[in-house]
């Protein structure tokens, strides 16, 4: 009987919370709609079109024997780390195309790799559910000094060092993100909130922010406070999995790439979507996104083997790179903005400039 009474009470509480949630949602929608006073494509009409656009393949990095799944630039603007389905992580000199390090992981599908800010350490992981750190030096095999730092209960989908080599942020198929201390391997903070696999994370470029954004298979992007572990903003709008998230260089906005074949720009201060990059002829999902250094160009790597280049302000596509012979799985603009690197299921990476 007592249980029954408690159950009724509980049900009432759930119902009342449900009503409050609905009211809050409605209020939020109204509030956001009120501030949506202009269309970005209209507002940017006074700005000149981008002319004389000309990007070419400059290098091809060949050596992976499986689908390339992830890549990251070194802060020296010269080296690149990439990981692949065959269980290999490679470190390249992008100028000469030489491979400087090769690490065989104890797993296939190495979905995440990342360079430390110092440029002397890389991290990677995948189906092993772990994030392993490899210090790089010319005289020693990185494997001898490797260190397993993070452990999730499902695959590692993404990882990124914070502003120091001493902390790494990870995202996982277990629907959480986590911040780890590299030295001790201890969990500093975990981030719960996604209702599906986390696919991508990106740290805010603004120094005071302490923010990062995550995207997931639950179709939403979440902005988190790294210190408190709290989700501070949630952004929806996509009709399918979000595969990639990337902060705008100013730190005020971020872009998402999704299986719904669109990319969307969300502004943190407006707390809503402010532009959508789509075309009727584009029907394949977008796996990877990044901005040029001024924030004017948006590069999207798609499942139809192309890279679409969007004008962030005007919202139109200004060019297509017929980049690869299979899906474009990852891409990144070099830290000084001089080149774009793309990675693909065709086992190759290419440098464009």
């Amino acid at each position, binding site marked *: 009987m007592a249980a029954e009474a408690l159950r009724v009470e509980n049900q009432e509480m759930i119902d009342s919370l449900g009503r409050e949630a609905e009211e809050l949602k409605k209020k939020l929608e109204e509030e956001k709609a009120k501030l949506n006073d202009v269309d970005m494509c209209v507002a940017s009409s006074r700005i000149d079109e981008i002319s004389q656009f000309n990007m070419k393949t*400059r290098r091809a990095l060949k050596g992976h024997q499986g689908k390339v799944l992830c890549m990251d630039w070194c802060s020296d603007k010269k080296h690149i780390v990439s990981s692949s389905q065959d269980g290999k992580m490679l470190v390249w000199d992008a100028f000469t195309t030489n491979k400087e390090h090769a690490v065989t992981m104890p797993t296939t599908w190495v979905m995440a790799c990342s360079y430390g800010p110092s440029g002397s350490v890389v991290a990677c992981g995948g189906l092993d559910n772990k994030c392993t750190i490899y210090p790089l030096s010319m005289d020693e095999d990185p494997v001898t000094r490797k260190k397993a730092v993070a452990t999730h209960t499902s695959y590692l989908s993404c990882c990124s060092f914070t502003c120091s080599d001493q902390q790494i942020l990870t995202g996982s198929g277990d629907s959480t993100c986590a911040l780890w201390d590299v030295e001790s391997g201890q969990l500093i903070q975990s981030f719960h909130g996604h209702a599906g696999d986390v696919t991508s994370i990106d740290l805010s470029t603004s120094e005071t922010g302490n923010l990062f954004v995550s995207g997931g298979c639950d179709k939403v992007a979440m902005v988190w406070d790294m210190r408190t572990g709290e989700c501070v903003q949630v952004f929806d709008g996509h009709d399918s999995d979000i595969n990639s998230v990337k902060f705008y260089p100013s730190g005020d906005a971020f872009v998402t790439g999704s299986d719904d074949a669109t990319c969307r720009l969300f502004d943190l201060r407006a707390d809503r979507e402010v532009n959508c990059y789509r075309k009727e002829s584009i029907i394949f999902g977008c796996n990877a996104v990044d901005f040029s250094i001024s924030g004017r160009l948006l590069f999207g790597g798609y499942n139809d083997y192309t890279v679409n280049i969007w004008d962030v302000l005007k919202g139109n596509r200004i060019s297509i790179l017929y980049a690869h012979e299979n899906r474009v799985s990852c891409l990144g603009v070099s830290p000084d903005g001089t080149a774009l690197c793309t990675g693909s299921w065709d086992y190759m990476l290419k440098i464009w400039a």
Partner: protein
Amino acid sequence: MEGQVAQVDQIRMNKFQEGLQQQRKLVEQLRLEAAIQRVRVSECIEDIMKYCESHSEDDALIKGFSRPNDNPFKEKGGCTIL
């Protein structure tokens, strides 16, 4: 038999507790979001446009290089017209 009933009751209770917990979390999240100070979209867009314009000269992928040799990824060698 009685033990089983008690067990089923317990499972049911746990489920309700879980539901309640989830609902609470959702409402807390929404309250937090409702308290956010928002900025007009026009203002945000203006700032994004300003950022683009003030950094456009540095964007080699749009502007190219003032001297082609500045491009670290330019193919070395080739013909030079004297």
